[in-house]
């Protein structure tokens, strides 16, 4: 019982036949080849499969693809600029040595996109809470927090908004 499914994935309209029981993670990985979407638990515990659906971070392993029908989906494959430049968040992860094995990295980067996109600043503790749905065993989160904090500050500086709250 294949159904027609459509969405805008990384800026491109996509139309596919899918099984309505399929998770969004499986559709993105298996049908679209977007293998940055990692699976570490398949029950929404680890956050590795995080993608943005209409700008909101979701665990795509426990999110039916049908729920994302007609929506905007973003994975890290869609983050680079057209000329290939890394997005500021990706750049911050690279330069802050926030990447180790890299398996949790795409998911956390997407949460960071959501955080940065909120247009406000956060305390370190607020950032800890915001990324606490992502498990990482390599980094102790230290450099990940440094990268997210840097991306938040840079975005805020760029937008020229209110003073940072410390």
């Amino acid at each position, binding site marked *: 019982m294949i159904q027609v499914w459509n969405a805008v994935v990384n800026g491109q309209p996509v139309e596919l036949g899918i099984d309505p029981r399929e998770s969004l993670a499986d559709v993105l990985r298996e049908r679209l080849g977007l293998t940055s979407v990692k699976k570490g638990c398949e029950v929404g515990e*680890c956050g590795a499969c995080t993608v943005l659906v209409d700008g909101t971070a979701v665990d795509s392993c426990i999110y039916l693809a049908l729920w994302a029908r007609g929506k905007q989906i973003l994975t890290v494959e869609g983050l680079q600029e057209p000329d290939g430049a890394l997005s500021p968040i990706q750049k911050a992860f690279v330069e802050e*040595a926030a990447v180790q094995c890299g*398996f949790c990295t*795409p998911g956390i980067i997407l949460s960071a996109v959501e955080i940065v996109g909120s247009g406000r600043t956060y305390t370190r503790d607020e950032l800890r809470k915001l990324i606490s749905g992502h498990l990482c065993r390599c*980094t102790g989160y230290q450099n990940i927090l440094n990268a997210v904090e840097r991306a938040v500050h840079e975005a805020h500086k760029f937008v020229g908004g209110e003073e940072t709250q410390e």
Partner: protein
Amino acid sequence: MEVGRSIVRVDAFDKVTGRAKYTGDLIDRPVLEAAILHSTIANGWVKAMDISAAQALPGVVRVLTCFDAPDIQYPTPGHPWSVEKAHQDVADRKLLNRRVRIYGDDIAAVVARDALTAKKALALIRVEYETCPVVLEPREAMATGTPPIHEEYPDNVLRHTVSEIPLPPDSGFQCAQEVLDCPGYHAFSGHYETQQVQHCHIENPVSWAYMEGGRITVVTSTQIPHIVRRVTGQALGIPWGQIRVIKPYIGGGFGNKQEVLYEPLNAWLCTQVGGRAVRLELSREETFQNTRSRHPISFDVRAAVDQDGRLMARECVLVSNQGGYASHGHAIAANAVTGFRQTYLDQIAHRSEAYTVYTNRSSPGAMRGYGIPQANFALECMMEDIALEMGLDPIAFRVKNLMPLGYVDPLNGITCHSTGAAACVEKGRQWIGWDALREKYQNQTGPLRRGVGMAVFSYKTGVHPISLETASARIVLSQDGAVQLQLGATEIGQGGDTVFSQMAAQAIGIPTEDVRIVSTQDTDTAPFDTGAYASRQTYVTGHAIKKAGTLFRRKLLDYAGELFPGAEGLDIRDRTVMDGAGNTLITLADLAMEAFYSLSHSEPVTAEATAHVKDNTFSFGCCFAEIEVDIPVGKIRVLRMVNVHDSGTLINPALAEAQVHGGMSMGLGYALSEEMKFDPKTGRLLNGNLLDYKLPTAMDHPELAALFVETCDSSGPFGNKALGEPPSIPVAAAVRNALRHATGVAVNTLPLSPQRLVEEFWKGGLL
């Protein structure tokens, strides 16, 4: 200098763009899915199995049971193979087992067109068991009359070893016991226990296998591709060269993927469906139950200390719970007693006794630190407790007894070629403001109290002389004058590829940017190396890279010498060959084109070298932690924490720091929250998922500080020594000692979880 540069990881770009490919991302052909039937008893036998309904389910290709699997017992640990039979690993595992030894043992497998069908088929298999009582603790397993879990070990003791260092001839004592009993010394005894925890790499074990040209290829998430080839060959009873193993990027390992757990079954299932591609991917729950973990170990320790605070003798008796399968065998318990001995020097005697005991728990194996985090907890609790009993300053007491430079282990000969141990302690003491805090947190009252504690460790580098240390490297010239670096050593997230590239660049005399490392190992083409474990690669593989790089450089310069007869003192600088007077002779790019395409002498330059390393050395370090404890709720909050490490010369300081953060984090979980819990009746793991197993999140961490004292180790290829595992070692004891400082209560069992702390505070009269 390429060594010492904090360059960005060579794989960072690919990892942040989602372009780095892991095992499950690489499937390039139609693939069948395998699923495993796990036993619902922890101890007993499979008497019969009815697979007819499963076999009849549409979409099922084959159902294979423990009655079909080859009757071959094979070893699983990722040790270098020993050609001496006495040192070979324990072969106690079959692909599928009729004799069930853990809850969830592998007893059958289904291969189907998709994962859902495979799982449905598992539910249709009927199993008849004969059960034995479940034994989860070594004491019960060793008790007279307990039936053996493995018939080869009637008393369930896999191995029991006793060792004692030779006493100085003029000591006047005959054995350690006499020193420990000597009334002239302060006598100490203590009991400490550690719990079973898991690695929790975020990528679960996954592999896929297919046949091509009559051979089996296994693509797998492993730390040890060459060993996977060997063990798969052994398990299937086929020549090892019939197996090809490919290792792409892996989503963490921490020792769990230093064991060959499911690749052999995957390869065998592939052969049973005509060589079609088969994927075997474990769920998180299977990973918890069926892969490895850190051994729970109980320690009984004694010490004799003289009035000056010098350790005269110590004794460490440990019992290690091995679970149902030998895995790394006795090696981890043996390493634990050795590590317990080494950090400090005993003036007269040291006695060790270690038991490794089979039980029906999920089997522990290698995990970051290989027995030393357990031993360090016992050792550093003991050192703290002795100091407090004797009224000594805990830091001064430790420093006085530290392993000295030039120390040679009396039993295995490992030598201390360099030490920054005391300097690390001093740096940590300054960073945390030890003296002021020790003073400030005396005599506190009320429910919230603070304390500061510390712990010291030492850790050897690689496995010599216990096992073979060998590594090979190949360097191949490209037409543009850059090089390709091929290794059997593996990148597992630690940054290996980056520091290997820096080492090659340093040895050749070119920028790291001109070294292109082949990250993926394919056992058909990758030089031989036993892989990522024992914090060995920067040391052992580093020697191979240095050797190959030096050879490559000489070959390049020899070739340049042919082009410029009479030129002297040739050197490589700024991507050019120069003569002794500093004149540019030729760029490396032009030299490479000549070497490839010369009509008179074509020789695309390559160099290959093997380092068989017959040395070892000690890394050192310490952790300092400041904590606050909420006594009524038994909750510890770590306020500040620093690790200070002497890992010799740092190849890449930024990555070294990141590595330390990760180890501290693992130590923090070990200290406070992580524990695998088993149902005593059934032996079933109760919290085998990432919700109920309390892995620390970002909210559970303080800011992590990582500092270094750089020494230059004469035995390391670039002055470097172990770094990968050490950061996780000292954290638990440092937190426990801070808790003792804060409350006066000595908690001697990990983890320091709220339930346990409240019980201990009751006993200690705080509640």
